[in-house]
Every structure is written in C-alpha cells, then in structure tokens.
C-alpha cells in the first residue's frame, strides 16, 4: 500500500488502534521487523522468497514411512548416514527418506464430533435422529 493510502486509512479508523511509535520515527514497522528477521536468520531471502513458501505449500501433506524405500536406501548407503530431514521437515527433497524417528504421532480413531455428540444423548427432539452413514452417536 502506498504511504498516502496508509495515512488515509489511519484517518478512516476510529482511532481505536494506536499508531506504532516506530512509525512516528519514520521507520516503517515492517522494515524494522524485516531487520530483526534477517538478524536471526541471515541465510533467509537468498532465494526468491516466493518459491520457498509456494513449494512448501504445494507439498503439504503428512509423509509416511515406507519400509521398502528405507531398507533400499540403507543398503545403498551401507555404513554411511542416511540423509535425514533438515530443519524443515515439510520440504520434500529427493534424497530424504522418512525414518521412524521423523514421523509424527499416529492419528486417533474416528469418533463422533464433540459439536454433535453430547446433544444427541439428551432426550431432546433430536433423539430419534441418526446418521445414515458413518459413525453412530454413542457413549
């Protein structure tokens, strides 16, 4: 947004949200935040910011352990270490094979939603209702 637009929008606001003091000094708060981030992670932003996020987004999904892949990779590597996940577990890279250590917890079994569960127990008008398919309300 342009600076002028930002000023106009501040005028439009009811004044409930106060302006950041840094902005009064002339330094945009965003830039100050960017400086903080670069200080913590110097290597960030070397690649174009866009594609990192986008790749991560496109590859969202829980990876599973494939014992075939794992054992084949172990056999190939022999005594060497298997390439393990980097700090970003979500990024799928060619060499990385999920190991049992990498995997998140197994999901719990399917039960009725808590938004519905309790209410179906009471002797309300809904007592005769049941799901045509899937889980019956119980417990």
């Amino acid at each position, binding site marked *: 947004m342009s600076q002028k637009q930002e000023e106009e929008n501040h005028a439009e606001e009811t004044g409930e949200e106060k302006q950041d003091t840094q902005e009064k000094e002339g330094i945009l708060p965003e830039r100050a935040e960017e400086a903080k981030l670069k200080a913590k992670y110097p290597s960030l932003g070397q690649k174009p910011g866009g594609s990192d996020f986008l790749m991560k987004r496109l590859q969202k999904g829980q990876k599973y352990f494939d014992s075939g892949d794992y054992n084949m990779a172990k056999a190939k590597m022999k005594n060497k270490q298997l390439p393990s996940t980097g700090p970003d577990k979500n990024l799928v890279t060619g060499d990385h094979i999920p190991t049992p250590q990498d995997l998140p917890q197994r999901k719990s079994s399917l039960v009725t939603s808590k*938004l519905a569960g309790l209410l179906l127990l009471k002797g309300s008008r809904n007592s005769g209702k049941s799901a045509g398919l899937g889980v019956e309300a119980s417990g």
Partner: protein
Amino acid sequence: MAGAGGGNDIQWCFSQVKGAVDDDVAEADIISTVEFNHSGELLATGDKGGRVVIFQQEQENKIQSHSRGEYNVYSTFQSHEPEFDYLKSLEIEEKINKIRWLPQKNAAQFLLSTNDKTIKLWKISERDKRPEGYNLKEEDGRYRDPTTVTTLRVPVFRPMDLMVEASPRRIFANAHTYHINSISINSDYETYLSADDLRINLWHLEITDRSFNIVDIKPANMEELTEVITAAEFHPHSCNTFVYSSSKGTIRLCDMRASALCDRHSKLFEEPEDPSNRSFFSEIISSISDVKFSHSGRYMMTRDYLSVKIWDLNMENRPVETYQVHEYLRSKLCSLYENDCIFDKFECCWNGSDSVVMTGSYNNFFRMFDRNTKRDITLEASRENNKPRTVLKPRKVCASGKRKKDEISVDSLDFNKKILHTAWHPKENIIAVATTNNLYIFQDKVN
C-alpha cells in the same frame, strides 16, 4: 432485514456455544469451515476429522418475540476419511476445507463438501413415516413363510421418530493434483467450480467422471512458479463469471464465454504498491486468503493478512474501501513469521444486506465493519459471556503506550486462539463464529 443499522447500532448478544470445554483440543475437533444454507435455517460445520455437523434452527420461538430460534443438532456424518496416496507415500487429509449448500429444490437438502482432493455431494433427507403392515415381512424385517399368510392387508405409513439421513450421492474425485482450497456453486445450479493451488475445474453436478479445466497457472518449469491460486468464487448472478485470488494479492475475473481455457483474465484487480514500502513480508501479507462476492454481485471483498478490502467490479486499479483488521500486528511480523501465524488464512463474510462485513482475528476476537457508518467493532467469542441475551462488550487492543483499563495489549494476545471461520445468516442478524474447537452463535438483541 431486522436491524437496518450497522455493526454498531446492533447490540450483539451471546446465544449459544457448541463443543467441548476442555483445553486439550484433539486435532480432529478443530473446526475448518462454517456455512449457513440459503434460508439460514441450517448451519453446517466441517472439521479436521472429516466430519460434518448440521444444526437446524428451531421454528417454535418465532411466536415469542424475545429471541430467535436456537440451533440444535440436525444431522452429523463422516464426510471424508483419511486416504493414502501410494505413489508419493503421502497421506490425504480428511479435513473438510469447504462446505457449500445447494439451494433447496425439494424436501431434501444437498451440500458439497471437499477435502484436499475429493468433492462429495451429500443428500440430507428426513424420514418421519415408515410403512407398516407388510404381508410377507415381519415388523423387524424377517421374512414370513408365505404359507402362513391367511389374509392380505395393505401396508400403511405410520409416523415415526424423525430420522435424518445423510448419503453421498456423487463423488467427484481424481481431478486435482494440488490441494483444493475452494468450491463454488454456479448461479445456474447445475455446475460448480473447484480450485486448487494451480488449477480450477468446472464440474456438472450430475457428472462425476469428467470435469473441464478452466484455469491452469502451472508454469512449464516449476522453478518459475511465482504465485498460486488461493480462493475462487462464481458470481452470484452471472453464470459465466468467476473470480480467483492469488498469493500475490491480485484478483482475476474471468468470463467463460471468452474461451474454454480462461488463462487470460477479463479483469485484473490489483492495488498498486509503493516500491519504497516493500519489505520481506510484503508479498506474504498481501496474499489473499478469501474472496467473497457481495449478495448484490456489484462488489467483492478480499481478506489479506492485515486488512479487508472491498472492490467495485467496475474498478480494477484499487479497492473502494479498506478496513484494517489488526494493524497493530505490523510491528510483530517477525515473530508472526517465526510461529507461522503470518500464514493463517482468515475468511470474511457479508451480512445479508451487504452493509456490514465481518472477519476474525486472534485472541478469539472478531471484527465487524459497517460500510455505511464507517464504524467498526471488536468482539470476543468467549465462554465468559455465557448467559443468553448478555450483550457483548466491545474489546480494544492497545498497540503501544499506556494501556487503558479494559484494553488488552498486543503482547498479551493469544495467537493460538484464532477465529478463521465466520458466517452470517443470509437474512437475519445471526452470526456463527468458530474458535478452534467451539462454535459460537450470536444474535442481535431483540426487544
């Protein structure tokens, strides 16, 4: 519509809250979508566990003037289950990304629900009578020996306890390589679109083995990928028109009459950015998380990380209105990036008369902006305001400087308590607000 005034002339009262009280939230219970049907009588929620719960408004209390009907559970079913993509060793989440209702054509109700990969058409029907008095079957279903039948009778329908059944009528699968973020039913009520990160497909509600690809922004070389599709919606009245938003903050309006593949937009809505203001965060916070047409079809609303913008479809170069949702977060972007909150996808909605818009924020706060009076209000969805017809107290966030009494400072905000999904009844001042695992229903004060 009741309450001609805007978000601030209305006094919002607590009505109901659904869901468990426990602090330890199971992942499956995280609410992922909320949607009223076209009459407002039904309210559907979807969750991360792939379940849909439908609430129905009671009709009885219409006679009593002190409050509108309450919403009670009408039906619940498992819409999607976890699946496995064997080729990629990836799990396909059962989380319901979106629910969209079809307009009612007959006694049954229909809705579309989708997870990352598969869209399903569900039929929800009532059964309040059953046939009794068969000649060849006992009441429990066992067959009778025909030789024992001495007289004949005509089976009759007798009333029974109301039973609501949900059955999947169509399954629209295998059309999306990437993750579905939107579904939208066309005003022709025959077709609908589904959008993933890179493609948009057009379906016919009756046909599951084919869909037409109408937008494809996948580059030939994935290294050149610069933006993804974040949301898409059909125009409420023009069956040939739809829009899709991108991670770069642009909205493209496409006309299906122009060509079969709508890769070339008819209109491009983009607000020019002052290059001197650009920072590392600029693109991330400009990513549009939701786009919604007004009921009139004249305007559309977009939600990016910090603001809500209203666009006039006749003006592409800038929005006509911009509302700051939580501008105080601009000086917290570094930590919001570190804890991933900067990627949270907030939705937004219009009221029935398009005069007020609403969106969620953190700390279980949600915001309403009155387009006419230009006033806004911040309210909180909390079990502390539990008594029915308790008027909600406006909340205030103190960005810096001296914190007044009753204000909450930015650093005290709970960023785990996000309101991503809200819905407004199409005709009345009733709103549904989803916190992580609870559904709140608020109504305006009826005197």
